[in-house]
């Protein structure tokens, strides 16, 4: 920090990630609005609080162990090596607190560690943390109106601070074993956030079961309509907005890739998470074109249905996200449009065939959209390097397909199913039937609702006594 250009680079990078965090906060605001809007009136506050408490619970656990897993488990462990040392990421590290970057106090750290991480650790941690909230929040929408809050919060910690960050260590890190061996490429997290969260939600839904009344006796589904479609769409708009922060948070803003490329001099550029070059312009073009592809196809296929048009706009971005660091914008738009069709058709097919009640289409938009995005990148980017290391595998269809399976099933569906199964066996997964029928808000906030009615009666009496009404 004693030369201006070096300090400027460090402090710009610190500020850059801070801005991404603020943007990504809007994703959670959007998810809360979206879920509350999609909920029936009788369950609104329960839905809101269920998702709100994801924030503190995933935050503290991501501090305690999530951040360390990202650096510690890139080898599996025991697939390409053992557990890595990551002394800047343990919850007892001095670098997980206010630090000026000087000589380390703890013997496990070096001067390079403190100089490199002091100003970046907190904001980089927070950027990853906001992804963690997103993963948990995706699951939250699918299970509304019948899951117990306490059970959901344990599941939220399971995906938000454990399974998703394992997949990030494996497939969203320059030296993750999936990158090394499979050539896995997922620049903007089609698989590492969306497919895993969709798969996890599906695993939970299989155990949790549908809401009462969702399916008729003959098995055909009823449409449980959002109590406030306007809130749903504004929520999705906010998720789009937050997605800008999500995209740039997946990049390193200024990095010298010259040495890794074998150049004699420096070459400073923006990179993706694999430290391979891209530009912010590229991802801006591709973000907007894939959003457009999803919206256009979503409008046509859903015949202008607002809920599905918005959702498929999001699905379009997700479907193109794996390769949006490299695609041409029109390729991104086409992939997004095809992805939107896959998502829409799969949602209704799975709903009809397996009687899965995914209240907000989260499994489809995130799960199937993310799976599709990872797989399609294997074909379109076939032969591209997955990282700067020439010894690692190239991007290829089989590697991406296996990667999608790992994300959706191995780290998504299986932990979600097992977690829900254990909670169900303990009798703490689902709201009792009487309470579900009565409405979760009436049950939890009974006194408040009765007070509201009493206050209204008192106001009427007061107005009458003053002669203001008859």
């Amino acid at each position, binding site marked *: 920090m*004693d030369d201006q250009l070096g300090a400027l680079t460090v402090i710009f990078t610190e500020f850059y990630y801070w801005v991404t965090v603020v943007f990504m906060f809007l994703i959670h605001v959007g998810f809360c609005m979206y879920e509350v809007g999609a909920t029936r*009136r009788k369950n609104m506050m329960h839905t809101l609080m269920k998702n709100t408490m994801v924030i503190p619970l995933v935050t503290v656990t991501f501090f305690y162990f999530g951040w360390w897993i990202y650096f510690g488990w890139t080898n599996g462990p025991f697939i390409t090596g053992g557990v890595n040392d990551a002394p800047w990421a343990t919850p007892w590290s001095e670098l997980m607190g206010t*630090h*000026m*970057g*000087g000589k380390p106090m703890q013997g496990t750290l070096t001067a390079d560690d403190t100089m490199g991480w002091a100003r970046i650790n907190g904001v980089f941690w927070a950027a990853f943390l906001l992804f963690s909230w997103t993963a948990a929040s995706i699951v939250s929408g699918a299970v509304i109106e019948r899951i117990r809050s306490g059970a959901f*919060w344990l599941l939220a910690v399971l995906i938000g601070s454990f399974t998703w960050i394992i997949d990030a260590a494996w497939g969203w890190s320059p030296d993750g074993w999936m990158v090394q061996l499979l050539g896995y490429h997922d620049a903007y997290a089609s698989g590492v956030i969306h497919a895993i969260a969709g798969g996890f939600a599906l695993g939970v839904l299989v155990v949790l079961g549908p809401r009462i009344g969702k399916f008729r006796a003959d098995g055909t589904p009823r449409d449980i309509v959002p109590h406030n479609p306007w809130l749903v769409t504004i929520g999705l708009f906010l998720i789009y907005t937050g997605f800008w922060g999500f995209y740039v948070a997946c990049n390193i803003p200024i990095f010298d890739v010259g040495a890794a490329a074998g150049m004699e001099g420096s070459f400073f550029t923006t990179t993706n998470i694999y430290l391979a070059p891209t530009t912010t312009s590229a991802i801006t073009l591709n973000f907007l074109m894939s959003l457009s592809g999803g919206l256009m196809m979503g409008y046509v296929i859903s015949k202008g249905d607002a809920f599905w048009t918005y959702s498929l706009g999001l699905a379009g971005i997700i479907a193109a996200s794996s390769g949006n660091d490299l695609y041409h914008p029109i390729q991104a738009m086409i992939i997004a449009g095809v992805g939107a069709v896959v998502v829409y058709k799969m949602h209704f097919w799975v709903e009809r065939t397996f009687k899965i009640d995914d209240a907000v289409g989260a499994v489809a938009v995130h799960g199937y959209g993310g799976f599709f995005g990872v797989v399609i990148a294997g074909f379109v980017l076939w032969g591209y390097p997955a990282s700067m290391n020439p010894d690692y595998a190239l991007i290829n269809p089989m590697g991406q397909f296996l990667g999608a399976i790992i994300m959706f099933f191995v780290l998504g569906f299986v932990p979600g199913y097992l977690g829900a199964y254990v909670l169900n066996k303990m009798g703490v997964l689902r709201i009792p039937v009487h309470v579900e029928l009565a409405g979760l808000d*009436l049950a939890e906030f009974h006194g408040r609702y009765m007070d509201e*009615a009493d206050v209204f009666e008192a106001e009427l009496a007061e107005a009458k006594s003053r002669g203001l009404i008859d």
Partner: protein
Amino acid sequence: MSTGVSTWNMNLLDIGPMYPFPGTEMLLAIIGIATWVIWHIIQMKAENRQLIEEENRFSDKAELARAMRISNAETLNEALKEHKQGS
């Protein structure tokens, strides 16, 4: 006496951790993790207790039917009407 930094009049490049009581990080981590675990235990016990109470209350058929009418009411007036009928 100082709980951490005692002066800024020094070579700032030498400053490492700036929070109070450096050296207590492990203890803080243990307290933090214990707090998280205890929070879940308290929350789940409270939720279970509350749901059992609510389940018992709504086991009464008339009470459940009334609750369903109130909670599915579209407006406060509708809910008030149901509330009055029940009281």
